């Protein structure tokens, strides 16, 4: 596995790196919050994403749907540069945040991740911290000085994540002591506390029961007042309920992208239609 990757990297040195090349202005969508342009991604020799393009509007929810293994989670992880943390991974193309390429050499991925928050598939509160510290963790870990408003930020974040009323008397309890659905909302509060601009959600309800799922879905719709949300889901009903735009991916390619109603009621591509009607998936 390692040897072919190194030869590939050597080849890349002789060629100009596509992620550093200037792009023609007419491709850039000035109204977009984030925009993926010709994104390719690999794990070792295996290509996961093939020239994917996607535009994310501010104050909207964009759903990425598709069968397992189609690359939707990998694609999502390119938006906050988490993809590159996996060993043997590689990425090409550009992703713009407010028109600036987040893969630019001068940019530290750490700055990007502070602006583009993420919620994972399985709730992952920090096991050694209590509920309060979990929400405050982002501010503390990124070295924000002791803030007198920390209490307010924690309260506000938990309120936004619709968790405050349930945990306001238990802030000193371990973050892992609450139920799975509450833990996931705690993780959302933790992401919100940093006041990011975009929130990425990687199948945030797949480990939750229907009631907890309904709460998270309601929350996702509320979140778009302040943030752009990109949500990966394998649940088509969920995509149709929460999103404004939907992208359908299959085998590493973006098959169709458009307004959610159009995708679900009047898909232009045969493959999308087959997936939506449940003929495969």
């Amino acid at each position, binding site marked *: 596995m390692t040897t072919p990757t190194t030869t590939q990297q050597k080849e890349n040195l002789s060629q100009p790196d596509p992620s550093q090349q200037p792009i023609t202005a007419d491709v850039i969508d000035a109204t977009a919050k984030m925009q993926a342009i010709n994104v390719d991604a690999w794990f070792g020799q295996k290509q996961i994403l093939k020239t994917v393009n996607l535009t994310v509007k501010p104050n909207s929810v964009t759903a990425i749907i598709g069968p397992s293994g189609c690359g939707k989670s990998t694609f999502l992880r390119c938006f906050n540069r988490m993809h590159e943390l996996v060993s043997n991974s590689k990425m090409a193309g550009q992703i713009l945040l407010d028109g600036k390429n987040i893969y630019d050499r001068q940019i530290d991925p750490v700055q990007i991740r502070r602006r583009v*928050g993420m919620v*994972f598939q399985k709730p*992952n*509160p*920090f*096991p*050694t911290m209590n509920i309060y510290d979990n929400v405050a963790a982002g501010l503390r*870990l990124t070295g924000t000085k002791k803030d007198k408003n920390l209490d307010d930020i924690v309260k506000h974040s938990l309120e936004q994540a619709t968790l405050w009323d349930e945990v306001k008397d238990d802030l000193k309890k371990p973050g892992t002591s609450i139920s799975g659905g509450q833990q996931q909302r705690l993780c959302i509060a933790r992401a919100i506390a*940093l006041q990011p601009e975009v929130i990425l959600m990687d199948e945030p309800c797949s480990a939750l029961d229907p009631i907890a799922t309904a709460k998270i879905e309601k929350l996702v719709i509320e979140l778009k007042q302040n943030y752009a949300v990109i949500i990966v889901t394998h649940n088509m009903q969920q995509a149709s309920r929460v999103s404004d735009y939907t992208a359908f991916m299959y085998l590493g390619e973006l098959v169709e992208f458009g307004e959610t109603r159009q995708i679900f009621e009047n898909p232009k591509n045969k493959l999308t239609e087959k997936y939506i009607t449940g003929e495969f998936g």
Partner: protein
Amino acid sequence: MINSYGFRKFKNRLFFILCAICVIIAVIPLASILLEVIIRGAPQLSLTFLTATTSRGGIGPAIQGTLILIGLTSILGIPIGVLSGVYLSEFGNNKYAQSLRTINNILTQFPSIIVGITAYGIIVLTLGTFSPIAGAVALAFIMIPIITRTTEESLKLIPNSIREASLALGAHKWRTTLNVVLPAAKSGLVTGVLLAVSRIAGETAPLIMTILGNRFFFQGLDKPMAALPLEIWKNSLQPYPEIQAQGWGAALILILMVLTINIAVRLASRSRMKT
């Protein structure tokens, strides 16, 4: 049919009996050593024995020396060992670290007499004197690989999702390691450190070459010092029954110290099971 069933049942029983016999064979020497040490050592125990100098029939200097050695060795060994383990676990995804890991595993089994000679060559000859520092360096050589390994292993048990949660908040890697990963692995780290301490507390060979032994209490970081394993070894070579008996007493104290540490390990690892 009935015969073959009976034979299978017999084989089953035979297997159990074989295992039981082997356990008994394994336990006999351990139990007899422990019993012998208690029977011969217990009569020696008294306040004078624990606190007086050698010439007054006590092992006070040896107990003090062992405690000082454990302290000095821990100061040297714990930070280096833990941080090496952090390197192997958190940054060790390359060939260089892979060979380091192999070398470290060999070092955990290194003959302690060679470690002693090494410390003699490096420290004793340089300083021109036997000293607690030389002893601590020798014991740290033994302690570091053990702590490195247990640290790496307990950090690897921490699920990657916890690291990703921190990195996704925009935390740097060192912050993630220090504030998220290490606290989550705390009880595993404590267990590894305590096991390493109990291992070095009983080492004798490196001490012969480094601290030499002393009949008096601690005299300075550049003077020879006493220690329990040395005391046991020296007393056992003497022809006089009273002095041999003091050796038994010292052996009992050393075993009790190691036992205490092991109980602490149990308590530390039990709290890991809970969380």
